[in-house]
């Protein structure tokens, strides 16, 4: 049957053409493109996020793919933590026709890459970028996964109000969106809750020496009831050491950036410190089970919650692919935007009714004696969250 053979050949040719435009994918593969910083300054965030995501993808593929239907192929590009390289990588991924894209754990490269993926109508996630303007600056194809800065700030401000703190000193840095905006959201929420911000002062990231700021705080009369900052390593340890050395005893509130082993190694200066985090593994929690699973799979101790967050992106895509009419474009975008209570390892994750930054629980933990304990886990009330 020459006719049929010819048709088959044509079909094969068409298929292979189709495959070549999709890069390498077979018909029903779901290609997840990553333009993230696996080397350079963002590697500390993007590497663990990728490790978690890979674990999720392995499990999902073992179950037959996203939604049981679409086996996932990862197309990983390293941006060297450079924003221009992130844009270029995103463009290459768009040209390959990938189904979804993941951008780095930072606002600048995510917004820049998002400009391209939004135009190409490809659903895009930032790995753990938490600046709420990431989604508002890009558009309806951009999604966050990590608890947003303004939500964290609200949780901290409500905690401060509940503790009866009336006045606050806020330390921020204009060197990154996270270190600048989170304290500003805190100031807004704290004043909305009836508190008073005495002063907002700034530091330079990596400056190492906080002597001048600390001497200034020490000179305040009256002393603030609480000091709030979103500084993280290496700035935060240097700050709190010098603060306590100067004899300032006001309690300190921090954000999820200090959810690291270093904070616990600081000794007594960190005692009483309260900070937010995306998830805290209390005994019997799914996060604890995940951490055990990760250790078994990789042989490494999970030292940051970014691993679990990367894993949850896999779960979110899986949940969306189950209900999406097709695994790409507007269908996939709509499916993600309507997700409610996806069972993540840190708690339920909801996109329905948000502008792309999910509603999810945020844990408040207290540091004491080189260990953390859970103060409370809260799902922030959407109406009270400061506007981005």
């Amino acid at each position, binding site marked *: 049957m020459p006719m049929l053979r010819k048709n088959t050949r044509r079909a094969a040719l068409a298929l292979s053409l189709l495959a070549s435009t999709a890069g390498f994918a077979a018909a029903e593969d779901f290609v997840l493109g990553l333009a993230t910083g696996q*080397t*350079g*300054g963002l*590697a*500390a965030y993007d*590497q*663990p996020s990728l490790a978690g995501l890979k674990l999720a993808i392995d499990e999902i593929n073992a179950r037959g793919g996203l939604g049981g239907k679409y086996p996932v192929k990862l197309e990983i590009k390293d941006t060297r933590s450079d924003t221009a390289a992130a844009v270029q990588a995103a463009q290459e991924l768009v040209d390959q026709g990938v189904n979804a894209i993941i951008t780095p754990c930072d606002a600048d490269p995510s917004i820049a890459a998002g400009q391209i993926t939004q135009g190409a109508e490809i659903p895009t996630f930032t790995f753990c970028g938490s600046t709420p303007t990431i989604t508002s600056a890009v558009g309806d194809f951009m999604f966050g996964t990590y608890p947003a800065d303004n939500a964290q700030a609200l949780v901290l401000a409500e905690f401060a109000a509940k503790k009866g703190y009336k006045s606050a000193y806020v330390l921020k*840095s*204009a060197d990154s969106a996270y270190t600048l905006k989170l304290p500003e959201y805190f100031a807004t929420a704290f004043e909305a809750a009836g508190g008073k911000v005495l*002063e*907002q*002062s*700034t530091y*330079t990231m*990596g*400056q*190492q*020496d906080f*002597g*001048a*700021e600390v*001497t*200034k705080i*020490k*000179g305040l009369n009256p002393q603030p009831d609480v000091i709030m900052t979103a500084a993280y*390593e*290496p*700035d935060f*340890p*240097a700050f709190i*050491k*010098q603060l*306590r*050395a*100067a*004899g300032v005893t006001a309690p300190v509130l921090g954000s999820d950036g200090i959810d*690291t*082993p*270093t904070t*616990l*190694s*600081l*000794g*007594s*200066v960190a005692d009483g410190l309260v900070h937010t985090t995306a998830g805290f593994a209390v005994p019997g929690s799914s996060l604890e089970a995940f951490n055990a699973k990760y250790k078994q799979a990789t042989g490494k101790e999970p*030292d*940051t919650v970014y691993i679990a967050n990367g894993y949850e992106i896999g779960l979110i895509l899986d949940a969306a692919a189950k209900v999406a009419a097709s695994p790409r474009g507007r269908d996939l975008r709509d499916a993600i935007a309507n997700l409610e209570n996806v069972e993540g390892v840190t708690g339920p994750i909801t996109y329905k009714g948000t502008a792309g930054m999910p509603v999810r629980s945020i844990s408040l933990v207290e540091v004491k004696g080189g260990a953390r304990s859970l103060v409370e886990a809260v799902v922030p009330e959407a109406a009270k969250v400061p506007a981005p």
Partner: protein
Amino acid sequence: MDLLLQHVINAVSLGGTYALLSLGLAIVFSIIGLINFAHGELMTAAGYTIFFMLAAGVSLPLAIVFAIVAVAILAMGIERVAFRPMRKADMTGLLITSFAMSMILQAFFQNAIGARPRAVAMPEALSGVVNLGSVHLGIIPLMSISITVVALVALNLFLKHTVMGITMRAAAEDIDVVRLLGLKAGRVVATSFAVSGVLAATAAFLWVAQRGSVDPLMGFVPVLKAFVATIVGGLGSLTGAVAGGMLLGIVEVLAQVVLPPSMVEFRDAFVLGFVILLLLVRPQGLLPAPTGRRS
């Protein structure tokens, strides 16, 4: 008055750390005319050595000594592998080699040890305070001032009273003449790298004691500060490097203190603006080397 004393201590302690760093850059520059941008990675290597030693249960003083020795050897190794083959190259070639070395070491740290910062648990006593009346003096600033003084005195003795030290000073004046006199130039260069390694490791300890952790990119900021300080002080001049480091520390603390809160975020712009003004008045830096070499 108390507040003033506190600010002075802050300024001198920060300036002292910068002085150690810029001295490490200057000592190599004075001999072979190279600004070694991998100097920051020598610090990182010292930080990791302290981290691994402490994790293995070694006491802190021993870990510091070990880090100093290890990094001095590493610095000589880098000289041997990367810079010696480039000895005949021009300034640009050497500079690019040092950038390459810096990136290679960063990538090595990220892939071999990990991208996440590692906590270096310093003894509780280091976070302590000495109370002088109403003035609280942190142990770490006091330590960084005294370590800086000890390091500077030791280096001075070495340069003035040992044969190798005197040879190094001669080489800084004119390395070709040193060669003609039958002294081994290669050994002089290697020693200058070893000394820069010792200074980098010493500064790294002070740096890590403040920040409590070590990460692969830790060396970037300090080497930048050291570079500015050596330029301010006068390239190739050792006393200049110390003066430049001190001045930079003092100006940074001063800017933080006197600028109104709304301007503090532009602190670095003011500091670097001051550096530019200073260079307009003294293009060779504060205390330039007599040979006036510039890259």
